[in-house]
């Protein structure tokens, strides 16, 4: 008795190894474009939004509470 019945020929071994090893996910052009668009939106729109919101909050603060000593001009 032996395990020879379970031997793979070299080509079979290579093919099976390729099947078993998870292939790296390659970024398709559309996925890349999507990721880039979201990143651009976050950087340009959202960050400006934060600046505008902070400016608005300071403005409201100054109108309601009055100007603090070292800011609000």
């Amino acid at each position: 008795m032996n395990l020879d019945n379970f031997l793979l020929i070299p080509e079979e071994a290579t093919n099976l190894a390729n099947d078993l090893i998870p292939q790296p996910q390659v970024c398709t052009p559309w996925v890349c474009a999507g990721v880039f668009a979201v990143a651009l939106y976050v950087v340009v729109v959202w960050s400006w939004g934060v600046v505008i919101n902070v400016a608005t909050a300071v403005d409201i603060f100054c109108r309601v509470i009055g100007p603090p000593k070292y800011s609000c001009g």
Partner: protein
Amino acid sequence: MCRHCSVGAGPHHNEVLAVEYVEKALREASDIASLQVVVATGGEPTLFPKHLELLIKTAADFGFVTRLVTNAWWARTLETARRHVKRWRELGLEELNISFDDFHLEYLRLFGGEENVVNAARAAVEEGLRTVVAVTRTRETKIDASYVRKLLGDLAEEVIVTDDFISPTSRASELFEEAVGNLPPFGGCAHAGSEISIHPNGDVAFCCGHIITDPASAWFTRVGNITREHLWDVVDRIQRNVLIWYIRFIGPHVLVKKFNEEEEAKHLCHACHLLATKYWKELETRGKEWIINDLKKEVKGLHVRVLAK
């Protein structure tokens, strides 16, 4: 004879690999980059001092890391321990691995006692060897790693002490009820295909596990013979055997469960023993294509489980 011996060693086994094949095996192994450690084990390799010295020296000369597994019967006094260890160190030994537990102690008393372990460990530490004490346990044994650490006293911090569990194969099959199951929740046998063992008759096994000399199941691990062929050819067959892939990546216990849901393997080696005996016909009938397909299915499941974890 030690009741726990899962490789069936004892005074009735006095065979040893012929000197010419020790040299041949090491020379051929030295061209296989992934083989890096050479371990002298048995039985008790110090009972063959000339072979042992040749093995250590040749392996060291070829650039292998060298390890000796022993029960320390030769270390009755610190002086004798120092003499032996110094000699082995000069030949190129780098690691001393001492087997000690309830089962070994029964016979170690004939040559001293548990002080032998302390003497051997002290001599090895003094010589700068990596030193390990490996304990085999069942549900009933008293000696465990913490017992050994207390025994070693001031040496404990410089010695690695490991707990291992019995595999109920060969003589140890009589300890089945005492054996502690230690199968991992999932995952295969890290030893299959990544280690080989070479036996006195020249047979090469694809692992160094507990069934490599078991009369009923040793054949399952034997994939070639160093006296008839080049070690490269044997290693090539190991690398192309899809059943060994399955054992390595998924585990033999998974196959056992597929053949019989009720069967409980106590140990990975015990699972291979069951495949080689009780379930061999089933495995042989299902054949290579079934193993390939099931391996693909299991590996897919493994990715999902790893991600889920």
